[in-house]
């Protein structure tokens, strides 16, 4: 069977013996996650296989096979074990981050702290005045293995 697309992320993909995969999302939350352990013959020419561990017998000609240790601060809804506040994904020092206007409004609506946000009126290259919001904070970065 030919698989060209489908959202099969974070679960066991429905791949069968002899299938050919040209696309689709099969990504997993944690690096080295074994998928389709009982399937010996697959031909894979494309697709998102981030954090998947292939079987040695598969014929792999393409696809994204990066192994990414994701931080639960960046991905709170994919079932990751919750990271500590000062986890290994956190930057050593605080960095100035441009805060999107939509995020500012979301936080205000949710009653969250916005006191650390600095807002300034700036003129862009075309003479248009825009509001730029910035905040100093730690950054959490997924780590590529």
């Amino acid at each position: 069977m030919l698989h060209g697309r489908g959202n099969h992320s974070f679960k066991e993909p429905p791949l069968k013996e002899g299938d050919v995969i040209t696309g689709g999302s099969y990504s997993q939350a944690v690096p080295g996650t074994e998928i389709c352990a009982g399937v010996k013959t697959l031909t894979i020419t494309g697709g998102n296989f981030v954090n998947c561990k292939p079987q040695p017998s598969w014929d792999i000609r393409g696809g994204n096979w990066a192994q990414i240790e994701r931080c639960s601060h960046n991905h709170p809804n994919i079932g990751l074990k919750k990271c500590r506040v000062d986890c290994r994904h956190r930057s050593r020092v605080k960095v100035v981050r441009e805060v999107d206007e939509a995020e500012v409004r979301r936080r205000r609506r949710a009653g969250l702290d916005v006191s650390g946000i600095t807002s300034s009126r700036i003129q862009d290259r075309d003479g248009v005045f825009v509001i730029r919001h910035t905040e100093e904070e730690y950054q959490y970065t997924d780590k590529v293995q």
Partner: protein
Amino acid sequence: MADIYADGELTTGADDGTSWADAYRTEASLQTGIDGLVAGETLHTTRTFTLTAPIDIDQASGGIGTPIRVTGYNYNSGTPVNDGTYAVFDANSAAASCIVSGSVDSWTVHNIEFKNATGDNVSGKTSTSNYWVFVNCSSHDAGGDGWGNSAGSNFRYSLFVHCHAYSCVNGFDLSTDCVPVLCKMYDLTGDGFPLVRSCAIFCEAHDITGDAFDMSGGTGAAGIVGCVGDNNGATVYGTTAPYFAVASRLTGTGIGLKGDGSTMILDLYNYITAATVSSGATVDQQVRGQDTRVTTGDEGYIDAAGGNYGLTNSAAARRTAVVL
């Protein structure tokens, strides 16, 4: 003012970008060429560049009427033609992104396929990149987003025409005031397209775990017109009034119109058979006292054979109201 040429699979020539025969052919020379572009100039590129690091676009901005262009070409056996075929920037599971914009503005990108980044395929950095236009581009199989901000910032006041994002986390993670037209997004584990002071026009979104069109956090109107959403966590999500959905099809599993409990939605002339029509929102679907919402029949289906696909037919059939 000079245009430059690049061919990721060329093995001969001077590698100086002056013609297709002498096109830039290595990652390093391509970077050199891009660094030298100024307003009004164009990079013409064909075939596939396999990257080990992101291409940095951080030197010059285009101007109004004089954008800096990147245009992909069909290789066409050595005589490249601009027929809409993608040129490819492949991050090859190694580069964090395919391209990263370092807060430069007014670039226009045509016919480029971005894929296989460990982070976002396309990202901004430093501060927002404004007035970008992506036409007929594809971004897929990223470890992060199709278009996002993993390098530090994102795109704002930008236009996306006939772009596809699939098999990523979020399709488009952008700042405010970005507009998608005739775009398509699917098989995403996050969200589709953020609409803040914006409107999605004739777009298609399906099989998205989160929210296909996310209008939360904006001010002023945001909405969708003529769009199709099928099998999404929620096709439309908004937290601020007003937002609107007009002449769209919301079908399949998940929620059609979703709010946060205080949301007001203008719901006009839509066909909605999503498993949950609306949730957490006050919905007004009337004009002059008449209900405009359609929930039965086969309204809006397009079938070349002159029939209709019926309501119980395949997911593919449900998405045919917008043909991209």
